[in-house]
């Protein structure tokens, strides 16, 4: 683990006085032991203590805090629930961490127009809970949905199991109230899509806290489908499961979600969750969720079952009622946690490949796993080619993290090589910025910086994230960890 703390270089007294005036005592956290929980996000291998944490409740307070940061030239980092997996909310040196936990109000539920307006600290599944009584739901459903915040979802453009059919966060955000890094409050978009002007809502979503802080978010909600059915099919080879995915898409069926797990992750989940529903001897399982009208689901179920059988599926289990469906999903949703139980540490990689390259890429990942000498479990959103290889290691052994990051990096390069992307949903953050040049030219990256320089002219909002800098990445961006924090002690 790398702990990145250094003594503060700044006199915080005048700044803290301003924060106290804006937020009151209870809204400002300074004590070291209280700051501990804010040292890292879900990427726990890097830690750095923020100088101060603020807990605003309103847009105006966020604006006042950011204006103070601007006056004093202090960098700030936004944080929702801290479940991000790319170090997006990792504090930067001597920074203010703006935590949205107290901005947790659902401001408006407008069922007629199918819109909900929330503060950023609202937890993802609260939105569905607020509207499910009337038969609606909020579609983007990251596995972390019971803990992650909508603000974090917006910043990362998070996906979920259902994004194959329904799209990711950006497809469900219509408008934002934002405090820019210069401290100005602006409204982007509205309740109605395609307002005149540039689509700044679309640009802000996925900007990982580098353009400012979102303080109000207008979401689109959807009517729940009439029928939902989950199919679990198990296969004696990964290739057969992969072929089934291609065949389903090829047949013109777009399932709500389509997930795959390999033998290693099946066994990890059975060890830990013990659902007894994923056969331990299967080389791969597919979870396929079909939704729509009853006739449609019935018909597609038959077609999907036939395609599974045609590819040698051994057993197919179908579940329609809520409880049975949740049982089938349980293992998949617990996959990350299960890794944490069977290995001291695990590193979640997030890459995307064209779906048709699945079999080749899985073979290559296996080869890389052997070459580097670390076990890799594969859990992924098979329908859209979003892989989550989980690399198991032991952080207590010096040097392991660096080697694991190198393996993770090789997997990313492989994804780019076959025409994919270095992140499907977890973001670039601090973790992957040095791999951006694998995908983008200097001109591409310069052009993206145009946006940042408008929202964030003095570079105070989440500096050092997303974009590679010579200082952090060096030229070859090879050993990322070693290069990014050269002066840091290692434990």
């Amino acid at each position: 683990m790398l702990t990145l703390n250094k003594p503060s270089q700044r006199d915080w007294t005048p700044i803290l006085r301003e924060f106290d005036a804006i937020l009151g005592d209870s809204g400002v956290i300074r004590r070291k032991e209280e700051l501990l929980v804010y040292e890292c996000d879900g990427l726990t291998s890097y830690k750095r203590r923020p100088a101060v944490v603020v807990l605003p409740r309103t847009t105006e307070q966020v604006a006042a805090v950011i204006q103070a940061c601007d006056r004093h030239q202090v960098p700030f980092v936004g944080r929702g629930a801290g479940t991000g997996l790319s170090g997006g909310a990792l504090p930067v040196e001597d920074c203010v961490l703006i935590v949205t936990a107290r901005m947790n109000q659902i401001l408006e539920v407008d069922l007629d127009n199918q819109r909900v307006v929330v503060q950023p600290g609202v937890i993802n599944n609260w939105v569905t809970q607020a509207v499910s009584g009337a038969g609606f739901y909020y579609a983007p459903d990251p596995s972390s949905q019971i803990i992650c915040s909508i603000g974090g979802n917006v910043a990362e453009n998070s996906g979920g199991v259902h994004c194959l059919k329904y799209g990711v966060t950006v497809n469900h955000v219509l408008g934002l109230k934002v405090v820019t890094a210069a401290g100005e409050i602006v409204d982007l978009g509205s309740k109605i899509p395609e307002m005149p002007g540039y689509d700044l809502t679309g640009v802000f979503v996925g900007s990982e806290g580098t353009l400012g802080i979102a303080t109000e978010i207008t979401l689109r909600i959807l009517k729940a489908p009439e029928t939902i059915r989950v199919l679990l099919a198990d296969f004696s080879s990964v290739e057969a499961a992969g072929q089934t995915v291609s065949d389903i898409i090829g047949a013109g069926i777009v399932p709500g979600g389509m997930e795959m797990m390999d033998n290693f992750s099946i066994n990890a989940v059975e060890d830990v969750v013990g659902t007894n529903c994923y056969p331990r001897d299967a080389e791969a399982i597919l979870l396929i969720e079909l939704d729509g009208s009853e006739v449609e689901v019935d018909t597609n179920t038959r077609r999907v079952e036939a395609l599974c059988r045609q590819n040698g599926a051994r057993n197919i289990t179908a579940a329609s009622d809520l409880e049975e469906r949740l049982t089938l999903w349980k293992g998949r949703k617990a996959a990350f946690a299960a890794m944490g139980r069977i290995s001291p540490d695990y590193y979640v990689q997030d890459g995307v490949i064209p779906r048709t390259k699945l079999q080749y890429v899985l073979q290559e990942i296996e080869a890389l796993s052997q070459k580097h000498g670390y076990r890799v479990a594969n859990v992924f959103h098979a329908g859209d080619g979003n892989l989550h290889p989980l690399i198991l290691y032991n952080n207590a052994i010096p040097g392991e993290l660096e080697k694991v990051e190198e393996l993770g990096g090789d997997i990313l390069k492989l994804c780019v090589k076959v025409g994919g992307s270095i992140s499907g949903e977890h973001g670039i953050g601090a973790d992957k910025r040095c791999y951006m040049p694998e995908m983008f030219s200097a001109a591409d990256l310069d052009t993206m910086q145009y946006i940042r320089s408008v929202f964030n002219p003095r570079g105070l909002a989440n500096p050092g994230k997303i974009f590679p800098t010579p200082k952090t990445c060096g030229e070859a961006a090879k050993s990322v960890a070693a290069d990014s924090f050269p002066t840091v002690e290692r434990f």
Partner: protein
Amino acid sequence: MSQFIPVLQSVVNGEQLAAWEQVEPPLRAQLKEALAPGSVPECVVQPNTPAQLAAVVKQLYQEKGRSLSFGSGSKLHWGGLAQGVQVGISTAQLNQLIDHAAGDLTVTAQAGMRLADLQAHLAQQNQFLPLNPSYGDAATLGGIIATADSGSLRHRYGGVRDLLIGITFVRADGEIAKAGGRVVKNVAGYDLMKLFTGSWGTLGILSEVTFRVYPLPEASKTLVLSGGLEAIARVTQALLASALTPTAVELVAAPTMQQLGQDGLGLVVQFQGLAVALDAQTAQLRQFGQAAGITATVHTDAAEATLWKRLAEQWEAIAPSPALTCKIGVWPNQAAATLAKITALYPSLTYGAIHAGSGLGQLRFDADLPSASSLLDLRRLCEAQGGFLSLLAAPTDLKQQLDPWGYPGNALELMRGIKQQFDPDALLSPGRFVGGI
């Protein structure tokens, strides 16, 4: 006299470059509709590779030449008037299909490709790009993206922004840059696809674009209902609050329905998907109709295609005198009432339709066009419903009297800042966009 022809001759062949007087009269007329009166471009250039497009733009950058990009020109009569344009850049020859990855449900093509040609390719693999914009036969991918012009299918598939997953473009300084990629899920880097969608050619010129595509639906049915405001509003709300999954839900103004031989406000609903599933869906909508005292008529096959074609024709028709067309937005739950109100207030309304799910719509007036002040009233009416009104096509003098865009928000300075970064000398489509951008 000629400043740009000689420099452009160094990067393109003679037949790709036409002095203004040599440009075919119909295109000249179209271009003029996008330009502020007073000057005409010196020439029109048609690069045929992305590298050539970049070279053209770089030359113009060095000479500080102002350009207007266009595809086939179908929407040049829309939007703000470009100021002092010296060169027209057509992407019509950048029309190659790059890659249809059918198994990945993506397609990459050059930006000057016509949507109709793309659809023909995709259909060979039983797939399609679910966009049905204006002038669907002539419109190019670049033009559709630049104007964010989608049609009724947005109800199920979203707008242009929701389908565009990668772009390559030529910047104002002639550098080629890209964003996104060719996979459907991708969060690496800022989403410039969203920024370019609806940017009216003011940030860069698209050379290559990648879309997410979908399987062609197996079957299709369209139901038409018409009646009084209250009944139609009730059916619409019942439909939207149900678990039915239509691909299109259009509220249609009475004068437009009249052209289809029906009285009253219209609701046109399309269902697409598995043939066996359509009956149950349409039966349920009929029930909603019956509960409100309205009978639905069902259209399939050729009759269905004709129905949609006749609706599109009313919107797109080239009138003897210039028509006035607008894009509007209103709260979805007020869409029926707003449409009825506009119909009552404006006798010259010939076409009116609002996508009931999103609240976005289109209005067209012919003959006695509303005056600038009456359009301002109409804009206020839309704004009072949380929305907006932008002029698309309008007589030039009207566009000079009235800000065509009507952006009601407070982020104009950010937008100007972005334009300033992308195009500091205001060389690309200057003046076409919001706030004179």
